[in-house]
């Protein structure tokens, strides 16, 4: 456990650094490979399969020497990432909005969907202003670069019609910016599941902005953007760590800090409309094809296997949850099927481009069972009120997936998987948990003592739809 303690320290250090801009302690300088995040390297073999040779065979439009080395933009790759962007945006609105909206009580449904929608709007602008730059540009200071990007691309300055990001050489930079934006959007939106039915709308907005800048951006940079976690060999194909563990842990802290909903344990808090939840889960599932297969940032066999793995894991997890529920609760429910599928999708996320379908099957089964454990047993045991199980599903299944990636990575699928190790994955998981929990706690405190966190008791009883938004369902 000594190591994990150290990592928590590291997390704290990170927090300090971002807040204060201090230099990275030497301890963190674990010879990070020069910024080569997974996806970047994939692009290479992928490019081979595409008609790249044509470029070489065409001497006429002779490009400059340095340009010759740079792979050309590929319309097929670009097309798939454009499509994936649409799919991932659809995951948040209307997907997640409905998934969550169906699970709350009727008096809170408009407020719940409005949270996903408003987070989408706010983060889009935050990402353009600073998020992209902090996550995916290099920080001039080499030490700081291990934990956070620079501000060179703030307001997307520097992006041109010809520029590309080094992580995705065959697509225009604008497409990469957009694709990654949709990840930045969904992550804080996922946290909303934990604080649903009781957080003030103003608090949601302020929390989201701070969390995106101070938790999401550094994590994304550390894992994908050239920072120390990617450098240490932590594998995270599409965001198991950056998105799901991060959001899940943040959700847990939110649930703990906010406290339980009024009437928790006595009032009837049954999901008011599981048809909405079914639509949401379905759109999450479909959209996850963009999330995972889009993370190949190309239209190739890696995208193909990522999509296939995604499907197999989601399905296996839905079945696993259904069967456990059938056994424990006597009847398998729609909510269980939906929850299981989402747990499986979460679990396969870090692994989608590293494992083979047999591995995906295992990850799905364990992810589904783990999600059930998190949302049903663990919550009952520890008595916190993670309203819609942001931690139970995303946190737990995310951890399971991240760890199993270290075990099941198949080099025949992705040569980067060769170095996969459970310990390295554990390291990534621990740092993320440590950083996300400390950082989220600090942000919540800031929000609490500025705009305030929780809606008044009266507002909560009346429902957030009317109290926060002045609107009601009329049917």
């Amino acid at each position, binding site marked *: 456990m000594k190591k994990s303690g150290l990592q928590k320290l590291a997390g704290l250090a990170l927090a300090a650094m971002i807040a204060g801009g201090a230099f990275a302690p030497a301890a963190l300088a674990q010879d990070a490979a020069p910024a080569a995040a997974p996806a970047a390297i994939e692009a290479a073999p992928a490019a081979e399969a595409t008609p790249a040779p044509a470029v070489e065979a065409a001497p006429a439009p002779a490009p400059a020497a340095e340009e010759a080395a740079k792979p050309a933009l590929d319309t097929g790759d670009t097309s798939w990432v454009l499509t994936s962007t649409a799919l991932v945006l659809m995951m948040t609105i209307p997907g997640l909005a409905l998934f969550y909206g169906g699970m709350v009580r009727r008096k809170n449904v408009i407020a719940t969907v409005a949270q996903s929608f408003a987070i989408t709007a706010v983060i889009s602008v935050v990402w353009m202003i600073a998020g992209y730059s902090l996550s995916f540009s290099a920080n001039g200071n080499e030490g700081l670069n291990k934990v956070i990007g620079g501000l060179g691309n703030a307001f997307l300055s520097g992006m041109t019609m010809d520029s590309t990001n080094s992580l995705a050489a065959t697509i225009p930079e604008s497409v990469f910016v957009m694709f990654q934006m949709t990840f930045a959007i969904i992550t804080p939106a996922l946290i909303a599941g934990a604080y649903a039915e009781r957080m003030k709308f103003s608090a949601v907005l302020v929390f989201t902005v701070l969390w995106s800048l101070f938790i999401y951006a550094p994590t994304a940079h550390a894992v994908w953007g050239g920072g120390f976690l990617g450098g240490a060999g932590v594998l995270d194909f599409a965001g198991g760590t950056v998105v799901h563990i991060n959001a899940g842990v943040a959700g847990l802290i939110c649930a703990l800090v906010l406290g339980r909903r009024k009437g928790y344990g006595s009032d009837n808090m049954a999901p008011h409309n599981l048809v909405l939840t079914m639509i949401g889960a379905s759109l999450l599932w479909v959209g996850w094809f963009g999330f995972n297969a889009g993370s190949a940032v190309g239209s190739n066999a890696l995208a193909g296997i990522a999509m296939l793995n995604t499907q197999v894991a989601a399905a296996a997890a839905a079945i696993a949850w259904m069967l456990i529920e059938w056994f424990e609760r006597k009847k398998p429910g729609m909510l269980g099927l939906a929850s299981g599928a989402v747990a499986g999708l979460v679990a396969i996320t870090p692994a989608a481009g590293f494992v083979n379908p047999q591995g995906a099957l295992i990850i799905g089964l364990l992810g589904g069972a783990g999600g059930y454990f998190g949302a*049903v047993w663990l919550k009952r045991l520890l008595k916190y009120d993670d309203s819609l199980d942001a931690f139970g599903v995303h946190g737990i299944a995310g951890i399971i997936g991240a760890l199993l990636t270290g075990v099941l990575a198949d080099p025949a699928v992705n040569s980067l998987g060769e170095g996969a190790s459970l310990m390295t994955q554990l390291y990534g998981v621990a740092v993320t948990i440590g950083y996300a929990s400390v950082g989220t706690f600090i942000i919540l405190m800031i929000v609490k003592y500025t705009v305030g966190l929780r809606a008044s008791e009266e507002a909560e009883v009346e429902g957030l739809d009317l109290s926060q938004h002045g609107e009601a369902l009329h049917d």
Partner: protein
Amino acid sequence: MKLIIAIVKPFKLDDVREALVGAGVEGLTVSEVKGYGRQKGQTEIYRGAEYQVNFVPKVKLEAVVDDSAAGKAVEAIKAAAATGKIGDGKIFVLNVEDAVRIRTGESGTAAL
């Protein structure tokens, strides 16, 4: 005049309506209600959290009838609504002092 209130199982609504019409009742008003009684509600479990729904869906029929027709109407409901199983419901009879048909302004028995 009497107000006959009957709380019955929802799927019996059409049978009861027909029986009442057969018994000469010309108008009635129906609401969806939830009943609590010997018949227990169901328990729903969502992600391990158990919610006891103590109420069972029922429909409530209200018909105002002439004093002389009340007995027949009660019998008609009784016959049509019974399944013999718990939860079949209740019939209550109250006295009505006056009735008015809004369209015509008629009052008393003529208004029914």
